[in-house]
C-alpha cells in the first residue's frame, strides 16, 4: 500500500481501534481459483502474540479453510474504517488561491499474519460466545442476547457447520488519510461538510486527526 509519510498510522491504540470498531475484515487469499477475498467479522485478542491475534469462523462449506496447508499460510486481512469524498468547496482557504482539488479520506489497517485452521469445538464455542458478548454490548442492546438463550442442541448443530481460523498477526500496516496534512481550518470545515451529508463517523475521524 502506498503511504505518504503524513498518512502513516503507527499508534498501536489507533490501529487496534480500527480493528475493534470495524471488525468485518476482507481475508485475501490466492487459491486455485485465483485471487479471492472473504468478508468475515474478526475478534481481536490484543494480549496474545506481539501484535495480537485475530480469530474468526467460516462456514464448513466455504472452501477457503481447506486450501490452507497443515502448517498454516501467510495471509492478509484488510480492515476498512470510515471514508468520505472531500469537496474543495469546503475549504475556507479555497477562495484565497483556488489551489485545491477533491480527494478521498479514509482509514485502513492491513493485518499480515500466519493463519491456522482451528477445527475444534471448544475453540469455536469460546469464540462465538465472546463475539456475541462484544457485539451485543456494542450495538447497545437493552437485554443482551446470550448463547445460553438458544436451544443447546441447536447451537451444537451450528457449531458442527463452522470452522475456526486463527491468525497470529506479524505486522499491522495502517493508513490514516484524514486531512491531517492540511490547515486545521480546512480540515475542520471539511469535517463539518462530511457531517452535513450524514457521514458522522468520517467527520469524527477527521476532527480528531489533528490531535496526535
Amino acid at each position: 500500500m502506498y503511504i505518504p509519510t503524513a498518512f502513516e498510522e503507527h499508534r498501536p491504540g489507533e490501529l487496534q481501534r480500527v480493528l475493534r470498531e470495524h471488525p468485518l475484515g476482507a481475508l485475501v487469499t490466492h487459491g486455485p481459483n485465483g485471487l479471492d477475498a472473504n468478508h468475515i467479522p474478526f475478534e481481536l485478542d490484543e494480549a496474545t502474540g506481539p501484535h495480537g491475534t485475530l480469530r474468526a469462523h467460516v462456514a464448513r462449506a466455504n472452501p477457503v479453510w481447506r486450501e490452507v496447508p497443515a502448517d498454516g499460510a501467510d495471509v492478509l486481512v484488510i480492515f476498512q474504517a470510515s471514508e468520505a469524498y472531500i469537496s474543495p468547496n469546503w475549504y475556507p482557504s479555497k477562495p484565497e488561491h483556488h489551489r485545491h482539488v477533491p480527494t478521498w479520506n479514509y482509514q485502513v489497517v492491513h493485518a499480515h499474519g500466519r493463519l491456522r485452521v482451528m477445527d475444534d469445538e471448544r475453540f469455536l464455542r469460546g469464540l462465538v460466545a465472546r463475539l456475541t458478548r462484544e457485539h451485543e454490548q456494542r450495538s447497545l442492546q437493552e437485554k443482551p442476547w446470550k448463547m445460553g438463550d438458544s436451544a443447546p442442541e441447536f447451537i451444537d448443530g451450528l457449531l458442527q457447520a463452522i470452522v475456526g481460523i486463527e491468525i497470529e498477526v506479524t505486522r499491522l500496516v495502517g493508513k490514516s488519510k484524514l486531512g491531517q496534512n492540511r490547515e486545521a481550518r480546512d480540515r475542520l470545515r471539511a469535517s463539518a461538510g462530511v457531517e452535513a451529508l450524514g457521514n458522522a463517523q468520517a467527520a469524527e475521524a477527521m476532527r480528531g486527526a489533528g490531535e496526535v
Partner: protein
Amino acid sequence: MYLPPYHRLDDRDALFSLIDAHPLGTWVCQSAGGLIVNHIPFLLDRSQGPHGTLLGHVARANTVWHELHTATPCVVAFQGPQAYITPGWYPGKAEHGRVVPTWNYTVAHAHGVAHVIEDRDRLLDQLNRLTHAHEARQAAPWHVADAPADFIDSLMRAIVCIEIPIHRLEGKLKASQDEAWADRVCTVNGLRAYPGEAAQAMADLVQNALDTHNRP
C-alpha cells in the same frame, strides 16, 4: 468468495449501483513480488467493454503502476452497508430459541487486469467525470476548471491513469434472506431504530430483499 445461493447477487444493475454508491475500492493485485493492495476511488464506465470498465488514478510515487503487466490479475472489492444483526430482534427467539447472531453486508468483486494509460486527455476526462459524479451533492458543484490551469497541470503530471476492464463481476448480498419471514421483518424494525447511516442502508436492503424475492 463463499456464495451460498440465497446470498448470490447476480443482478448486474444492482452490482453497478453498489459500485457507484461505494466507489472506494480495495484494489488487490497479484504481482510477481506478492500482493499489492491500494484503496482507490473508482469511476465505473458502464459503456466501456462488455462488463464495464473501472477508471481510477494513482500517485506516480505509488510503485503499483510499475508492477502491472498483462499477466497481473487483480480484484477490486467494493463494500456496501453492513450491520451486526442481533437475534434479540427475532420473534423466533421467544418462540423456539433456535436463533443466533449474524453479520449482514453486501460486496461487489470486480476481477480483471489493470492497464496503465499514459494519455493526458483521457486522464483529464476521467478527472472531470469523477468530479462531476461526486460534486453532484454540492449546492454549487466544484469543477476542475475552477482551479488555476498551471496548478491542475502540475497535479496531473504527478498521477497516472489506471483502467481495469471488468472481466468477471461477482456479488454477495447477505441481507437476512435465509432467516424466517417474521424475523426479517423485525430485523428491518430493529435496524430502523438503530442510529447511523449504515444501519438505515442495511434496513433498506433487508426490506428490499423481502419485497422483491424469497417470499414464502
